[in-house]
């Protein structure tokens, strides 16, 4: 969690909510099992509205509770996995957003939170998919899983600038997948989301290999129109 989220949380919370959270953090520090009943209650005590950088107030308050757990490694993973299992979607997204923070303060946590990221990527909840694809996923997902996660975002309409590590991890194979996706859209006479182009552009030849440019001579007018629009977007003319 970036320090500005913590600062924003402190500025945001009313005194009563601040007192509740301070007390809850102390209880969790004394007895880790206390997190099982304070974690679900965060929304009604601290609020659920947006805070900053895609985090809600409840996300940030929950991250603070997790950071207060006096557990490490496998024991920490076990506790947060159960919070995720019994959590509603707001609780689950807070667990996912907290993974990088947990690893930052406990290296032995390592990739033990990865099954939770994978579970979010199997699902259809775009909020959870986005929360899962933070710096922790960028560090730990293998190449294949990372590429498929990016493709899933494109399918679900999650803007790719929300996906951590894309600039560093986008490779030729991902460019191929996105170019093929763009071709599929064009062949259906549909628009292509503009955020696929930077990755495709960075790997010369990927677009040509997809067969998309050939669509400009299609016998179907909507395919031709879609192809012209896609090529203009690719070259940066649109």
């Amino acid at each position, binding site marked *: 969690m970036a320090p500005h989220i913590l600062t924003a949380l402190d500025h945001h919370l009313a005194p009563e909510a601040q007192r509740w959270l301070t007390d809850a953090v102390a209880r969790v520090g004394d007895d880790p099992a206390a997190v*099982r*009943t*304070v*974690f*679900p*209650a965060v*929304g*009604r005590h601290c609020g659920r509205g947006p805070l900053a950088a895609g985090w809600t107030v409840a996300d940030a308050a929950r991250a603070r509770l997790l950071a207060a757990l006096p557990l490490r490694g496998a024991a920490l993973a076990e506790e947060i996995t159960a919070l995720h299992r*019994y959590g*509603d*979607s707001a609780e689950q997204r807070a667990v996912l957003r907290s993974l990088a923070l947990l690893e930052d303060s406990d290296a032995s946590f390592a990739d033990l939170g990865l099954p939770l990221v994978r579970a979010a990527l199997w*699902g*259809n*909840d*775009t909020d*959870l998919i986005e929360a899962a694809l933070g710096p922790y996923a960028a560090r730990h997902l293998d190449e294949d899983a990372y590429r498929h996660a990016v493709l899933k975002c494109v399918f*679900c309409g999650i803007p790719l600038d929300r996906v951590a590590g894309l600039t560093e991890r986008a490779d030729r194979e991902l460019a191929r997948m996105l170019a093929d996706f763009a071709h599929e859209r064009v062949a259906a006479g549909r628009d292509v989301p503009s955020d696929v182009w930077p990755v495709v552009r960075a790997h010369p030849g990927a677009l040509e290999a997809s067969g998309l440019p050939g669509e400009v001579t299609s016998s179907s007018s909507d395919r031709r129109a879609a192809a012209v629009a896609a090529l203009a977007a690719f070259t940066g003319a649109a």
Partner: protein
Amino acid sequence: MRIFDPHIHMTSRTTDDYEAMYAAGVRAVVEPSFWLGQPRTSVDSFTDYFDALLGWEPYRAAQFGIQHRCTIALNPKEANDPRCAGVLDVLPRYLAKDGVVAVGEIGYDSMTPAEDEALARQLELAVQHGLPVLVHTPHRDKAVGTRRTLDVVRESGIPPEHVLVDHLNELTVSMVADSGCWMGFSVYPHTKMSEDRMVRILQEHGTGRKLVNSAADWGRSDPLKTRKTADAMLAAGFDADTVDQVMWGNPVAFYGQSGRLDLADVKPDETALFEGNSIKRGGE
């Protein structure tokens, strides 16, 4: 007319029911966790059920303009199965959820030692979590079962105003009235209580601390019994304010003691999704 059905098992009902309930004036419901007509054999089936009461079912209700809250518990019937006893250990996680407005249904089915243990532990959990409780009374040997329930409630130390004793009839209403607990009546098509008997009880015992529910579930039951009872009250000469007290004010006051009953109007939103899924079918 606005109606709050304080006890209805919507998981077992159809979208047609939701539509008809909305048209009849139902704007809020509480779904108590109970058994499903067939025994569950593991703790995990309970937690999946609890998750649905907190997730999918409120989503479904909201699609029809109805607010859905729930009560969570290990029901008395299944408390007798040792494979399900572990449910008591996961309850604290669920009792902390926003959508949970009471512990329930708890109480007696056959009055066994396992039911005693489950009832006592869950009354204790209700006190710890500051939640009211919904107490089921047995269908067989009802008067004895209700008296014993009231004894256990008294010994637990929970304030009587935090307790709703349900499925009452002409023979059990007075003892619950004297205890200080709230009184629930399930109006069914064939058994338990009818609209006319319900009206007579309200005439004789007054409307204070009385809640009327349909208890509609997977059995023969009618989710519109609340509205039909309200109509019978009006026909018998109760004024609109008194009907509103029984059908809305009393359930709001009882479950409101949880501190979690925030009933903002819900507007049906066909574009809303639950975990990426919707109630629509192909072609819509």
